[in-house]
């Protein structure tokens, strides 16, 4: 092979290597098309609070779903209840204690295919320094070149000490909180 041919071969082959490398690398999360929220019931009134800051890393190959991995970091101080005063309150010690625990995290331990467009995800959820094993179904849909991962995970807030002291009263704020998420990611 002449140097010129070698150079040409390298130039033409490079995109192939790049594509192969891209498969092993995590997908790029499109935050504008992603959301994470928590819905809780306050005296039976459903209230949804959105988390404005989060990152999601999803390593997903439709051909090898069991090799997938997912990790999500949520900025606890970014919870938005639609009222600045309430947002300051839930940052306090008895709620999220954002000064000491600025992040809630989820890391997958296993992802298994469960039929077309469905995955069963198990992993570790850490909020306010408490880690619990959680499992939930996840749906995957292709949207153009991107994949949309959607699911919801019901948790018990008191298992993570969210709402201490007088807030332990679940007749006021129910124990069950549903975390809803939608992550759009692509190459």
């Amino acid at each position: 092979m002449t140097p010129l041919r070698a150079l040409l071969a390298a130039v033409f082959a490079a995109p192939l290597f790049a594509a192969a490398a891209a498969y092993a690398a995590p997908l790029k999360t499109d935050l504008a098309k992603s959301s994470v929220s928590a819905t809780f019931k306050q005296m039976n009134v459903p209230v949804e609070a959105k988390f404005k800051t989060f990152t999601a890393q999803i390593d997903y190959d439709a051909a090898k779903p069991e090799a997938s991995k997912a990790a999500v970091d949520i900025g606890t101080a970014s919870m938005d209840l639609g009222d600045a005063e309430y947002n300051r309150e839930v940052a306090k010690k008895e709620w999220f204690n954002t000064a000491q625990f600025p992040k809630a995290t989820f890391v997958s331990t296993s992802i298994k295919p469960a039929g077309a467009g469905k995955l069963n995800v198990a992993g570790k959820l850490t909020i306010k320094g408490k880690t619990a094993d959680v499992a939930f179904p996840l749906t995957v849909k292709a949207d153009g070149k991107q994949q949309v991962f959607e699911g919801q995970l019901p948790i018990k807030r008191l298992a993570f000490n969210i709402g201490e002291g007088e807030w332990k009263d679940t007749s006021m704020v129910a124990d069950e909180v549903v975390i809803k998420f939608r992550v759009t990611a692509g190459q």
Partner: protein
Amino acid sequence: MQRYSSVAIALHWLIAILIVGTFTLGLVMTDIPGLTPTKLRYFSWHKWAGVTVLALAALRLLWRLRSRPPAYPAHMPTWQRHAAHSLHGLLYVLMFAVPLSGYFYSLAAGVPVVYFGLFPLPVLIEADAALKPTLGALHYWLNMLLAALVAAHVLAAFKHLLLDRDGVMQRMLPFSTNKEFR
């Protein structure tokens, strides 16, 4: 002098008590700083009471349309009749406008109303951060107007009782003790 019908009297006083209570609770709850279970409880009670006022106001309006109130006494000057009539009309408008503005304020804040914690009421508008402060101010000022008009209404009633002594106030009292006005 002819009294109001017992249905009109019952609705008047029921709504009056609810309005005074809900208004006071509104001032108390918004004065509680931060976020406490008591504050959230008061907010819920306030909304339930407000929705009750709205429902009773609807009943009262229907009753008013099919049952004419007793006529004003003949000695009342025309301007006083007009003033009384306008004031009553405005009070009717505010019986609807105050709870409705609060209802939409709550919806704009993203908190639907679940009556007595049991019955979810219709979510007519989406949560709207831009609209929320406007509806909050509207709800507040409609309440201040209502308070001023209620004060005028009560003063006028006492004017009839103490100065005119014409039995106009007694027509609306729940228990007629004075035989003269039966």
